[in-house]
């Protein structure tokens, strides 16, 4: 039931964004993809989310050929750096979206959806803001709505692309503790992209250091820090 990423490669024109990236993580792990910009971490995340097609390689998750499934069947909750909230919908409608688009047979009753939205609003501590539009919220609030929206579909996997990148340092710190808490509560497997090593080491069970489209080293935060296995990792962490 673990996540197994096997030598995934992806080129954009002549640029090799991913060059044989491999990674194994147990079910329920919180994985941080850490690396400088251009190292391929966002591309790998987007491939896991089904937003980009891998040129070669495979990924298995929960005994499924993960990359063969279309994005909308993966139930991978994706949280974008720029939030990507539906601007013409209220917060409540944003959160309900993933439930409302389900086929008739699987769609919960309207009252049940409403109840679920209330629960999620409470979880992200935005109880009274369900009627607001995204443009009326602060950055931190928007990202919490985005997370609630991703959680509404009861995701198998949570994919977060520098979710706190656009926020100030204090809010970042609060949100990452809270995010870890939500991850544990929801029992999902999470993959989290960041270029901030302090952030990666603070929240993740596993840190995967990426460079030039490859994963240089994977391990528990302490182990990676104690024993960097390649010159790049030791230099990157030392910086």
């Amino acid at each position, binding site marked *: 039931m673990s996540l197994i990423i096997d030598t995934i490669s992806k080129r954009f024109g002549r640029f090799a964004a991913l060059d044989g990236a491999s990674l194994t993580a147990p079910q329920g792990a919180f994985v941080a993809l850490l690396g400088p910009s251009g190292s391929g971490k966002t591309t790998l995340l987007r491939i896991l*989310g*089904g*937003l980009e097609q891998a040129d070669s390689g495979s990924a298995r998750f929960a005994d499924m050929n993960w990359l063969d499934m279309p*994005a*909308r*069947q*993966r*139930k*991978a*909750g*994706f949280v*974008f750096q*720029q939030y*990507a*909230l*539906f*601007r*013409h*919908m209220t917060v409540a409608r944003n959160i309900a*979206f*993933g439930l409302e*688009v*389900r086929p008739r047979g699987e769609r919960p009753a309207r009252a049940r959806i409403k109840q679920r939205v209330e629960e999620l609003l409470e979880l992200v501590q935005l109880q009274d803001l369900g009627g607001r*539009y*995204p*443009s009326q919220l602060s950055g931190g609030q928007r990202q919490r709505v*985005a997370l609630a*929206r*991703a959680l*509404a*579909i009861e995701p198998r996997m949570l*994919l977060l692309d520098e979710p706190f990148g656009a926020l100030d340092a204090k809010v970042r710190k609060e949100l990452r503790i809270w995010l870890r808490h939500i991850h544990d509560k929801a029992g999902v497997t999470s993959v989290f992209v960041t270029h901030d090593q302090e952030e990666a080491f603070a929240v993740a069970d596993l840190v995967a250091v990426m460079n030039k489209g490859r994963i240089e080293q994977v391990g528990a935060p302490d182990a990676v820090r104690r024993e960097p296995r390649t010159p790049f990792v030791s230099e990157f962490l030392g910086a």
Partner: protein
Amino acid sequence: MKKHLKPTEDPLALKLLLGAIMLAFIGLVLVLPLAVVFREALADGWDKAFATLGDEDTLAAIELSLTAAAIAVPLNTVFGIAAAWAIAKFDFPGKTFLVTLIDLPFSVSPVVAGLIYVLVFGMQGWFGPALADYDIHILFALPGIVLATIFVTFPFVARELIPLMVDQGRDEEEAAATLGATGFQTFRRVTLPNIKWALLYGVLLCNARALGEFGAVSVVSGHIRGQTNTMPLHVQLLYDNYDYVGAFTVAAILALLALLTLGVKSFLEWRYADELAASHRH
């Protein structure tokens, strides 16, 4: 103490001068001609004007114009959305070429556009004789007029949508996909609501131009009175026959349709001002 102006504020005299120039220009170029149209239409009184409206050929021209617009505008709305969606949300080879192609009707003279259809469907053209064998008539008939109208008004919807959709990016569509929405659900629930104001504006402009198009339609219509004469062509025909009241009456109808279009647009902008502002912020 001397009062200081804000850096963005101009002296009163300059503001008045600029305002006066603007009003004079608008009055001379926009309002005055419009007033003349209505004055000439009513020069011999309301009865004469209404007599023109009761004329069979005039009614046929109005009907033909409305029919051509009723076919061309919905088709161009669909084409425009499809083109803008493809250009803004996907990457594919030949994209720049497609954008240039969409602009073609703006750069080609409408007369040339009409002549292209004569070349293709005329009796001396490529397909004209073959189609005539099956009793299908494109030129000097409704299909030709509709084709010419579609060609000329093609860019309006697409041009209105492309910059907005490029600016909005693909994030929301990608988010919808990860949340389980199908392509159609994403389009209906996410893409369409985000572009509806620009779309409406494009459709109104497209409609105004479709009703008013003269050049391209003139080439393919054949000017058959009561059959293939659209409103703008009918204006010319009446004017050439020294029926000034008739010409200006039909022109006044065209002007009224244009004013109605603007009125609808302004009303909607006023009615949905909040929503409009929300879709641009964020």
